[in-house]
């Protein structure tokens, strides 16, 4: 049964099949897209800000269950947070939320959406970069 699967757990599959906050926003305040060079998958994120908070967020693109579930979980996490709080989210937070053991080969899938968020939130010029995280 899928529920017993240590990797493809029910909630991962659920976020993959029914991604939360999926789509695009009109006139977003921040919009950014990144490519996973390993597989060619793309994830983009649109943010709408109000009073310094993330009022609304949508992600788009396609990818594996891990990248899609991770993006879906991330959008849920940042909605209503300030941009400063979103910037504080680290790799460990994302991996912890996924709650599964991610191999080195799949880590870029899991962290692609965080990369999109960070690069978008900081603005490309100011982001210290994923290596600095």
């Amino acid at each position, binding site marked *: 049964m899928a529920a017993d699967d240590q990797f493809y757990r029910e909630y991962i599959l659920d976020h993959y099949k029914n991604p939360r906050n999926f789509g695009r926003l009109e006139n977003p305040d921040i919009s950014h897209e990144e490519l996973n060079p390993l597989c060619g*998958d793309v994830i983009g994120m649109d943010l709408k800000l109000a009073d310094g908070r993330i009022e609304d967020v949508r992600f788009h693109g396609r990818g594996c*269950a891990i990248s899609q579930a991770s993006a879906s979980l991330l959008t849920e996490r940042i909605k209503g947070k300030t941009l400063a709080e979103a910037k504080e989210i680290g790799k460990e937070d994302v991996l912890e939320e996924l709650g599964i053991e991610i191999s080195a080969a799949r880590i870029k899938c899991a962290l692609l959406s965080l990369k999109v968020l960070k690069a978008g939130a900081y603005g490309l010029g100011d982001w210290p970069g994923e290596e600095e995280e």
Partner: protein
Amino acid sequence: MSTSTSSRYDVAAIRRDFPIFETGVAYLDSANTSQKPRQVVDAMTEYLTEYTSNIHRAAYAFAEKATERYEGARERVRRFINARSTKEVVYTKGTTEGINLVAYSWGRQHIGAGDLIVLTLLEHHSNIVPWQLLAAEKGARIEYVDIDEKGELRQDQFQALLERKPKLVAFGQVSNALGTINPIAEMTAAAKAAGATVLVDGAQGAPHAGIDVQAIGMDFYAFSGHKLCGPTGIGILYGRRELLEAMPPFLSGGDMIRAVSLQETTFNDLPWKFEAGTQAITEVIGLGAAVDYVTGIGMDAIRAHEREITEYAFEALSEVPGVTIFGPPPARRAGVISFALEGVHPHDLATIADREGVALRAGHHCAMPLMTRLGVPATARASFYLYTEKTEVDRLVQQLHEARRIFA
């Protein structure tokens, strides 16, 4: 029941030459890199433990043995590809370096502003990027031959591009992403007739079908050792002697010189002019053993075995609901099957397969322009070689069903 082909072709005996299969892995990623037989490992170990020495220099006996083995491997490769002379057989790090060598040494002399370079959509990035850099530097243009719905090159378009008198035409013998076998004899003849210089990327072709460079008549042919049962870090560039003679060196330094004074250098003869610095001697010796190994089995027998496995896998995969196979029918493809499973991303499929010891490639296969053309970011790819057996394909099929169950 085994067929008449498989009863002559003893795949079980062949697999015993490959220590990795003792681990129980179903290895379906040979287009990425091949496994290595004991014979290759032993030849390299023997050099490393019994006669390590540099070549072309030392006077002692075991150094002579190293030189003999090093140059002996070159003669084996010459025979393998049927080059006229070992002067036409240059050691490189691999296919990529071979193509770069041509792009730098030949390309920078012969490609100018406005010149046309013709490539195809089936190319690996290694046969695209060096030409893009050259074209950007020289102001040359690149045009690509498209594929049809079967993943085969549009020959009508190729002919039309040849009428525009390209300076260089470069294409693969076999597509790494789709397995398409290109009609390289016809394409080379047509391109030569149009006055173009022709480079064939043999990375996926040489290990599976072999090559006769004189029969085909291309100007350059590059391939890698590691896909041919040999080690990584060694490859071959074949070039027609007149062209290689006229080309400036690629890398410079030791061993590629005849005499050096403070102001100038006389270069060594072919092929050593293109082999600067201490070479990958261990790997060359390994490549020599690999060529012995595959020719010992016979390229025709290898091709026949791969074809049988490919037909078997094609049929077995086709029967799995939701599977789409990209590329030509099995008779016109090498041992490569690129496919998609509906609702399951290739990466997830590879992860699921990996958990049961089935090694499968997922990704864009270093052919992003082709993936864009197919309208997919990535595919899953199973690829076969002389040691592949049907039970490995069966194990893959089981994992496709498992993936469907998980993602149902």
